[in-house]
């Protein structure tokens, strides 16, 4: 549990002990014949965090670490196997009840691929209007049209673009459309799952700037997912680091980059190419992420961890509070890991 | 010389008593022999019997003198015992020939070469029924456990289905059903010298598809085909080294109309049967342009008729055969008179694989009926679907063809005119029912006085014609295509007897 967040702001999202397990077993007959047991993939393993109103929490981690799975659970696209999600104090249950439909208005999502996230057969205006229509935010079609125009202008396009089809836009423009759609139901909370990873850097800068501007204007709360640490650093107030479905460290953004605690966090930081040409000594990450179906016992990171000892191999680490946040590492807990020598 | 012979269908079985069916008999005729055999003009001639006569003093008994010195293919001698055995076998439940023998009470061997048949009453035309009744060897049948024709529910094939041991001019060499049957001349045939017997080997291949059959003849792969499609007659006749032989067939094609029911199921007239009105039936008869059907549909290969029996049949007369010229105006007037000036709608059922151009005839009829306001909806289907409709009395207007194996009108009356009872009228789809007529029909069976009998027959025909129970169309004509060096008349029953075939 994350008890450290005794801040003043009330949390908008409270996630407690969230897990998601996928049954990836082979069909029954195969299991019988090949004498195998059922197989489960713990995509998200007992994750807890909070997001305060108006803040940006970022999740980083390698591919397959469970970032998207968490995002999907947060917006109700996936049912958690265990754990609870409270949205502004209200539990999220995936159904089509009145209450849930009300709740749906308050969160939205921006997806990774600007190409796949817009229905190619729909006009842009219809795409943007859909949440309004379905969620009943607005009924009058003239008003809807006006609002669509406003939204398009808000994200830096022109109202006339509503009459076009998505394929007439560039990737960056499409992502703007996707943002406009996400904003059309006036949400408080927006989950952004790698919103810029498919874009070029110059366009990425535009989108990131836009998102920050919108946050300021509309008081949005973001869950921002990315595997790009530099982007995360630019966007986030706080950062959670995921490894094999588990949170290994949550810390304040600035602090995390200054003094990463968990060896995995350090490793990720080390892997970032040094654009500044500071001559920073990089330590290459060893090995690859293990198969999530049979994760290593104990601390799942131990096979790649330069500091691993016997305890790491056998015992699952608990949260340790540190100066900057919380971390789950025996090494940190025991204080046997040298302070990060981040040359800045 | 080898003769390669093809026709549309194969024989169903070599067991001579289990199927009463044309192609089956046609093959059996080469291998087995009846007491009395039809010749190439369908006239009965002596075969295994040399003489037959009603027993003096007892009109209920026929006496047959058997041919002596005949041997089966297997070498066994042919005797009266075999005849008795064969007749008893053919009378069994599982035999398909038994209906032809219902009148026979007993068959007994008087001596080795004389057989007596006792009938229920006098049966003047009994010999006519025996031309497809083949004689098997008793010993062979017993040895091979085929003393009875195959039952349908037997799990096994009986020996006689694919093996044969007859006295005929040809012996079975090999047989693959539906594919190829090879026959070889019987070296010990009694008829040597009596028949040409020029064919020494017969290769018989059924070819179902008409175009393929004609193609096989045209390309010289076969020497003789039956069932030449009428449209291909010219092509075959003009083909290199080919010719076409024809002969009137013992089969009349006609339409049946349900005049007996109160109301029809297949029409659009509520509560009434338009066919019940004889004027409607007459109008329909007048609407049919038989000459056009002959000219176009049959390509001249038919003999239009006004009666439902072919000329070979006892009872046929030229007056009966005369048919009205198509007269639409008169027909319309009659319809008007009957109160159906605006016509009505009815379903016409038709087979499409049984008679020559059956479907096309029906189509033509639909057009002709249309001209007098009767909208006939044609349902053409395979015979397996068509015939049950007739015998099940489920159709009101249908096409049927009828052959008369006994060459006597009684046969026709029994099946088509007599009202439907347990043993008669099973094919009377007209539902025509007249006690007087029924009584007359029943009297025919035992009437010994031929003149009187013929008189009754004529009377019945008069009723049939006056009432217009059926709408006769034509008698079929048979066409056989063959190599021009073959001298072989076409047999009215469509049964080639290859022992008569000559090459020039």
């Amino acid at each position, binding site marked *: 549990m994350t008890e450290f967040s005794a801040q003043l702001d009330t949390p908008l999202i409270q996630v407690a002990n969230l897990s998601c397990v996928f049954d990836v077993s082979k069909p029954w007959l195969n299991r019988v014949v090949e004498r195998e047991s059922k197989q489960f993939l713990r995509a998200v393993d007992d994750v807890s965090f909070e997001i305060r109103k108006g803040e940006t929490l970022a999740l980083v981690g*390698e*591919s397959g670490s469970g970032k998207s799975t968490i995002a999907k659970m947060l917006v109700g696209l996936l049912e958690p196997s265990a754990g609870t999600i409270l949205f502004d104090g209200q539990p999220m249950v995936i159904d089509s009840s009145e209450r849930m439909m009300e709740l749906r208005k308050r969160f939205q999502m921006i997806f990774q691929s600007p190409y796949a996230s817009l229905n190619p057969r729909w006009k842009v205006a219809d795409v943007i209007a859909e949440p309004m229509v379905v969620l009943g935010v607005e009924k009058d079609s003239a008003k809807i049209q006006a609002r669509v125009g406003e939204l398009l202008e808000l994200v830096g396009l022109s109202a006339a673009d509503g009459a076009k089809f998505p394929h007439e836009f*560039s*990737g*960056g*423009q499409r992502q703007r459309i996707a943002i406009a759609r996400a904003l059309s139901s006036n949400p408080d909370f927006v989950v952004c799952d790698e919103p810029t990873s498919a874009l*070029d*850097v*110059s*366009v*990425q*800068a*535009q989108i*990131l*700037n836009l998102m*920050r501007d919108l946050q300021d204007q509309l008081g949005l709360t973001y869950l921002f997912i990315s*595997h*790009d*640490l*530099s*982007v995360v*650093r*630019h966007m986030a107030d706080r950062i959670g680091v995921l490894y094999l479905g588990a949170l290994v460290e949550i810390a304040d953004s*600035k602090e995390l*980059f200054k003094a990463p605690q968990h060896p995995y966090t350090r*490793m*990720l*930081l080390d*892997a*970032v*190419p*040094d*654009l*500044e*040409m*500071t001559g920073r000594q*990089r330590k*290459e*990450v060893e090995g*690859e*992420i293990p198969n999530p179906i049979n994760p290593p016992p104990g601390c799942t990171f131990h096979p790649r961890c330069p500091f691993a000892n016997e305890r790491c191999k056998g015992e699952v680490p608990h949260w340790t509070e540190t100066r900057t946040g919380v971390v789950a590492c025996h090494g940190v807990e025991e204080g046997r890991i040298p302070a990060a020598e981040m040359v*800045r | 010389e080898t003769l390669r012979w093809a026709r549309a269908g194969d024989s169903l079985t070599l067991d001579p008593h289990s199927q009463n069916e044309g192609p089956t008999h046609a093959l059996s005729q080469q291998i087995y022999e009846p007491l009395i055999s039809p010749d190439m003009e369908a006239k009965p001639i002596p075969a295994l019997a040399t003489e037959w006569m009603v027993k003096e003093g007892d009109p209920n008994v026929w006496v047959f003198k058997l041919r002596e010195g005949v041997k089966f293919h297997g070498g066994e001698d042919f005797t009266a015992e075999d005849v008795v055995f064969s007749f008893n076998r053919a009378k069994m439940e599982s035999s398909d020939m038994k209906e032809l023998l219902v009148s026979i009470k007993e068959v007994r061997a008087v001596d080795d070469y004389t057989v007596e048949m006792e009938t229920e009453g006098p049966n003047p035309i009994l010999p006519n029924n025996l031309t497809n009744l083949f004689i098997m060897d008793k010993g062979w049948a017993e040895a091979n456990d085929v003393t009875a024709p195959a039952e349908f529910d037997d799990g096994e094939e009986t020996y006689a289905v694919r093996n044969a041991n007859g006295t005929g001019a040809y012996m079975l060499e090999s047989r693959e059903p539906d594919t190829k049957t090879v026959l070889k001349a019987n070296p010990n045939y009694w008829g040597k010298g009596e028949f040409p017997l020029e064919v020494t080997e017969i290769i018989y291949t059924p070819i179902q598809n008409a175009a393929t059959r004609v193609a096989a003849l045209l390309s010289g792969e076969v020497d003789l085909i039956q069932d030449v499609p009428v449209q291909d007659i010219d092509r075959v006749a003009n083909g290199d080294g080919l010719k076409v032989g024809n002969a009137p067939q013992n089969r009349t094609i006609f339409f049946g109309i349900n005049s007996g029911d109160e109301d029809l199921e297949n029409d659009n007239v509520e509560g009434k049967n338009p066919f019940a009105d004889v004027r409607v039936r007459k109008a329909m008869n007048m609407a049919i342009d038989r000459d056009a059907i002959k000219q176009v549909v049959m390509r001249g290969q038919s003999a239009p008729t006004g009666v439902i029996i072919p000329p070979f049949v006892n009872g046929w007369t030229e007056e009966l055969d005369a048919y009205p010229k198509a007269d639409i105006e008169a027909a319309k007037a009659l319809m008007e008179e009957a109160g159906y000036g605006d016509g009505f709608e009815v379903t016409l059922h038709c087979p499409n694989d049984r008679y020559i151009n059956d479907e096309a005839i029906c189509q033509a009829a639909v057009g002709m009926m249309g001209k007098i306001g009767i909208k006939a909806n044609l349902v053409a289907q395979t015979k397996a679907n068509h015939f049950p409709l007739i015998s099940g009395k489920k159709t009101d207007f249908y096409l049927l063809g009828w052959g008369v194996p006994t060459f006597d009108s009684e046969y026709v009356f029994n099946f088509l005119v007599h009202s439907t009872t347990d043993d008669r009228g099973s094919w009377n789809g007209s539902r025509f029912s007249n006690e007087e007529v029924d009584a007359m029909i029943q009297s025919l069976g035992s009437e010994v006085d031929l003149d009187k009998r013929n008189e009754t027959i004529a009377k019945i025909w008069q009723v049939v014609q006056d009432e217009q129970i059926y709408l006769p169309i034509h008698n079929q004509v048979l066409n056989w295509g063959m190599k021009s060096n073959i001298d072989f008349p076409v047999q009215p029953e469509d049964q080639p007897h290859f022992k008569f075939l000559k090459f020039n």
Partner: protein
Amino acid sequence: MTTPLLSVRDLVIKFPTRHGPLTAVDGVSFDLAAGEVLGVVGESGAGKSLTGSAIIGLLDPPGHIASGEIYLKGERIDNLRAEDMRAIRGRRIGMVFQDPLTSLNPLYTIADQLIETIRTHLRLSEREARKRAIGLLDDVGIPAASRRIDDYPHQFSGGMRQRVVIALALAAEPELVIADEPTTALDVSVQAQIIDVLKEQCTQHGASVILITHDMGVIAETADRVAVMYSGRIAEIGPVREIIQNAKHPYTSGLMGSIPTLAQEEDRLVQIPGAMPRLSDIPPGCPFNPRCDKVFDKCRVHRPSLIPVENREVACWLYEDAEAKGAAL
């Protein structure tokens, strides 16, 4: 002056379309010295891959080299017969593609593919080729190479496969390796490993590298020189360090500014307005002019060619004087 290993002169690549030919690469020229690593960066669609494909002679029809020349060690290779070009591919120029998951034929073992490649170019027996193949796999860091060589591609992870691909590209000891975004499809933590392997192997075999990527960070760490492409043209080319730290072309500096970094705390990223023009409506003059904050009249009319500035070249009218100066010097 020694002949450069590779020399690209005024390369123009066109696609015929219904609206007339599209010029996707327009007058690209650069040299590459032996042993040098040249980074090519630019936004998607800038023409990086096309340039790479053109060099190795694998432009997909209907794309074709409309004009320009490519020399390999002074020998012209852009107009060779198909068969001669084939002999160069793999043997003298190797190539690594972006997606290791799809670069290998799934139906053949790694050994099959390696041996086939080796024996196509080198006169070796099956046995020798296999030995060499195992050696190559060892070199690219595949553990237990002699055992894993008989595995199929799907039995390897993404990073491992990309190592195999590198081994395949290097199988016949080419003089030049073109790597087209070799790490984009891989995980962050693996990317660095692959770049290291690539660089190390190439250095070892003495091969020059053209490293195509859109990741400035990778270039910064790997390349000796970098070419920045924009709209099918080279905007700026020169030593990496200089360009990163002191970009001359407004596009390059905008690009550098738009990359968030770990080091500095910036509130807003530098943002170049708009997007790269579509091929069908590249503006006259400098293609960057509509987005450029330093644009002036000439930019809108005349197309700048590469102007040597200090020890790099920049295609920007701002440096016209510099050329004059340079010429004067």
